[in-house]
Each structure stands twice: as structure tokens, then as C-alpha cells.
């Protein structure tokens, strides 16, 4: 957590927040949160209802200002009352959980254009940006721009909400439970698009999720928030490997990891840091055929990550070469074993 390299686009240090501070109804929500988000990374924040995660993400774009501690976005300190908050909100795009609460125009096109038009951006550029944003989330510009926002499915609404934020051209995208309530197909589609945004467009993504399959699929770094402080920080691999020793995190593992943990606790020497379906199947197969000797380390991941179309495709870490990954060493799976 101490690393503060040049590539950090957002840092939170020793952040405290208390609702209704100074009144008898004061409710403390955050106690000294520290968090570093490197540019271009994809960070998951996991936490129970009431863990303070929504309070935390509202600090990222200045909806809440630090009462104590500091939030720095691209070098701008949010505790400074003089900071240009509209610029911050343009850099940090925040998508809330419920799309109903963030779509307020009658027509899809108008809703997506709301932000840039408020900023006074010329219409021709707004149109260009909207085309781009809608394309990225998978909405057809010509077909959708004049559609009513009432007559949309849950998945479409979420895409409109996402496009309405992307059109601001943020550098950091913050998503609160981006897939809650979606059916599997829309969910997969949306997750793939978010991943593409992160991997191809280089957008920094921070998302809140309870779904460990999703975390495994998207995130390269995970923060677990519990009772207002960071209780765990590491890669998904490290998290899933540590669950046995850290029941306090109250994080449910993906079912594949559950299988490996159950096998591990029954004495099989399986590698509990593996979590994609092909990896888990490989471990299970090894265990079932009695190959999992006590000293055997896991084999390197097989190149064959082509799961059936339903599966989450492959592990979520392939970006070490550029060196931005904060925990590249953890990918060395031999050392993660048995932590």
C-alpha cells in the first residue's frame, strides 16, 4: 500500500467519514481508508452492505469531500475547497447501481447527451462522443437515439447509464455493482465490454461487486472493505488463496474456489489460488486421478483457456509485461500456494 508510483491516478489516504458529524445521530462510515489505484488498472472493491463502500466511492468524484484524510485524483487534492469539482467529476465517471436513478431524460439520445451539453460542449462534438460511447457499450446510435427511455430492458438501461458517463470521456470509470439484476446473457455482454474498455481503451476501472466470478474475471487488484476500513488488499488469486485463513473477510469464493478449498481441507494438495473453470477442472482432475502428491506444486497454467462459451474466459491477469501491475509477483503461482 505504501507504493506511490507516478502511475497512480487516484490515491486515498487515511480517509475518515462520519455522516451527520457533530449531531447526536452521527454515524461513522469510514475509518482511515488507504487505497491506491494505478492508471490503467482494474480494481475491485468488495464489501458487505454497510461496509462503507458506497461512501468510499462517492469520495472518488467529490460527491463527498474528505472530512479527514485525503483523496487525490490526478494530482488534485479533494480536501481543498478551491478544487474544480466539475473537472474532477468529468475525470472520474461514476455509474450508480440502479440505472433507474440515473436516467432522467425521455429519449435515450438526450439522456446520454445530458452531461456534455451541461458542460457546454458543441453539439457536433457531443454527437461524435455519443456515437463513440454508445458504440462502446453496444447500443446502435441510429436505432437507439430516439428511443424512449421507458421502453427499455434492464440491460439496455444499464448500458444507457454507462454510455451517459462514458460520453464525458472520464479517465477513471467507477461502477457500483454493474451487473446486479441482469440476466446471464446481458451480464456477460456488459462484463466483456467493461473489460474491453479497460484493456483496449486503457480506461482505469474501479468496480464494486459481490460476485466473485465477476471479480475473478475483471479485476487485477482487490480491496476488501469491512466495517469502514480496508481488511484485505491483493490480487484475486491471493484473495481466494487466503480465504481459509481469513474468514473475517466474509467473502464468498466462486464455486470453483469452494471446490478447491473443500478438497484442500480434505487433504488434497490442490492449488487454491486457481479459480477459472479450466484451472479448477485441471486441479480437480489431478486430485481425482490421485496425482496431487503432497510436494507437487501446481503446473503452470495451460495455454488452453478456451472454455465453453458459457464460461468466464480465462484468468484475469494478463497484463504484467507493461509493469503497471502492482502485484505482478503474485502471478508466480508457486509462491502463492499455502499462504
Amino acid at each position, binding site marked *: 500500500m505504501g507504493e506511490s508510483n507516478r502511475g497512480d491516478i487516484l490515491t486515498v489516504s487515511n480517509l475518515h467519514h462520519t455522516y451527520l458529524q457533530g449531531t447526536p445521530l452521527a454515524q461513522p462510515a469510514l475509518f482511515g481508508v488507504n487505497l491506491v489505484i494505478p492508471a490503467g488498472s482494474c480494481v475491485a472493491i468488495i464489501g458487505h452492505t454497510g461496509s462503507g463502500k458506497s461512501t468510499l466511492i462517492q469520495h472518488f468524484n467529490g460527491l463527498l469531500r474528505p472530512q479527514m484524510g485525503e483523496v487525490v485524483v490526478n494530482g488534485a487534492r479533494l480536501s481543498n475547497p478551491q478544487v474544480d469539482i466539475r473537472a474532477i467529476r468529468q475525470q472520474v465517471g461514476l455509474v450508480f447501481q440502479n440505472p433507474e436513478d440515473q436516467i432522467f431524460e*425521455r*429519449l*435515450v*439520445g*438526450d439522456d*446520454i*447527451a445530458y452531461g456534455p*451539453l451541461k458542460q457546454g460542449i458543441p*453539439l*457536433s462534438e*457531443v*454527437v461524435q462522443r*455519443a456515437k463513440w460511447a454508445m458504440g462502446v457499450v453496444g447500443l446502435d446510435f441510429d436505432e437507439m*437515439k*430516439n428511443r*424512449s427511455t*421507458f421502453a427499455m430492458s434492464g440491460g439496455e438501461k444499464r448500458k444507457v447509464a454507462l454510455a451517459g458517463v462514458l460520453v464525458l470521456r472520464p479517465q477513471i470509470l467507477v461502477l457500483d455493482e454493474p451487473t446486479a439484476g441482469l440476466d446471464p446473457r446481458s451480464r456477460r455482454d456488459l462484463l466483456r465490454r467493461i473489460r474491453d474498455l479497460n484493456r483496449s481503451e486503457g480506461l482505469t476501472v474501479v468496480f464494486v461487486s459481490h460476485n466473485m466470478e465477476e471479480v475473478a474475471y475483471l479485476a487485477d487488484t482487490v480491496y476488501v472493505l469491512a466495517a469502514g476500513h480496508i481488511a484485505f488488499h491483493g490480487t484475486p488469486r491471493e484473495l481466494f488463496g487466503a480465504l481459509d485463513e481469513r474468514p473475517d473477510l466474509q467473502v464468498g469464493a466462486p464455486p470453483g474456489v469452494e471446490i478447491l478449498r473443500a478438497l484442500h481441507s480434505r487433504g488434497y494438495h490442490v492449488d487454491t489460488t486457481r479459480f477459472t473453470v479450466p484451472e479448477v477442472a485441471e486441479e480437480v482432475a489431478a486430485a481425482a486421478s490421485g496425482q496431487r502428491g503432497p510436494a507437487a506444486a501446481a503446473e503452470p497454467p495451460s495455454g488452453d483457456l478456451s472454455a465453453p462459451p458459457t464460461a468466464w474466459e480465462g484468468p484475469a491477469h494478463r497484463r504484467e509485461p507493461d509493469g503497471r501491475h502492482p502485484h505482478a509477483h503474485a502471478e508466480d503461482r508457486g509462491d502463492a500456494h499455502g499462504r
Partner: protein
Amino acid sequence: MEKQIGFTVRRIVVAGVLSAIAILLGFTRWGYIPVPTPAGNATIMHIPVIIGSIMEGWPVGTVIGFIFGLSSFVGADVPFFKDPLVSVLPRLFIGIVSWLVFVGIRRWNVYAAIGVAGFMGSATNTILVLGMAVLRGYLAFGPALVTAVANGLPEAIVSVLITLAVVSAWMRIDRKGRRSKLDVD
């Protein structure tokens, strides 16, 4: 099923949620549009009453009006609203007037009927409340008239716009083929 009179489940819930909005608007500053007059700010808290009576009939409008009246009575900062005859009684008529206007005009043009009902409902609120304030001796006629124009006019305009937007979308008589601002080609 369509022919049911009295309070159907639907009418009860619509009256309930619209009353909730009327109360909420009163408790947040969003119910007010600041206009400096003796009656304080212009208000949009009566719009749920109008919407309720257009959508579900005058009894629903009257009930919402009553609840709106009570909440404005309890929460009033302006002295004469602490008189139930000013804050509650006139509000009972907003629903009836807007419903009558709506029913009267809708055979020609539903869209226009909603708009005019929005205007007349708002005007009813302004005229009856201020009229009652004059009758009860809180306001002289002159200031009341000034207030009626300064507050009543913006209230009525906002009321027309919101009522139209909400009711027409709900009745699905939205003008078809609306074009987004982005539709520039």
C-alpha cells in the same frame, strides 16, 4: 373491471404515492421556487394533486389535496398557512377543478386537456388560498393580487409543463416520432 367506482386498489396506491411526493416536496427545498412575495416562495407541491385527479379522478385528487393541505399546515413557515381554513380547505378544490377541466376538454384534444387542467388546477390553488387569506383578514386585497401574479403565474407555467410531461408519458399519448437533440442530420 374498468367500471369500478370508488377507491380501487389502484386509486388508493396512486393517491398514496402522490401524497408522499407532495409531503416530500414540502420538506425539501425542491418544492419551492423562490419568488419574493408575502406568501413566500412559489410552490410546486400542488402538482401531485393535479396529476392524481387527471389520472384517477377527482376523489383521488381531493384526498391528495387534503393530505397536501395538512402537510403544508403542519410545516408552514408563513403565518396564514397555520390557519387550516387557508392551508387545508382551498386545497380540496384543486382536484375537482382540474378533473372537470380535463374531462371537459379531453374530447377535443387530450394533450391540450392535460395542459389546461394543469394550469387551472394551479390557478385554483393560487386564487382560493389567497382569496381565503384575504377573507380571513391576513392579507389586504392589493398585496394578494400582486402575490397572485408574482407567484401564481410561474406556478401555473411550471405546473403545465410538469403535468404534461408526467401524464402524457403515463397515458402513452406521447407525440410519436420525437427526435433527440442528437438527431441533427
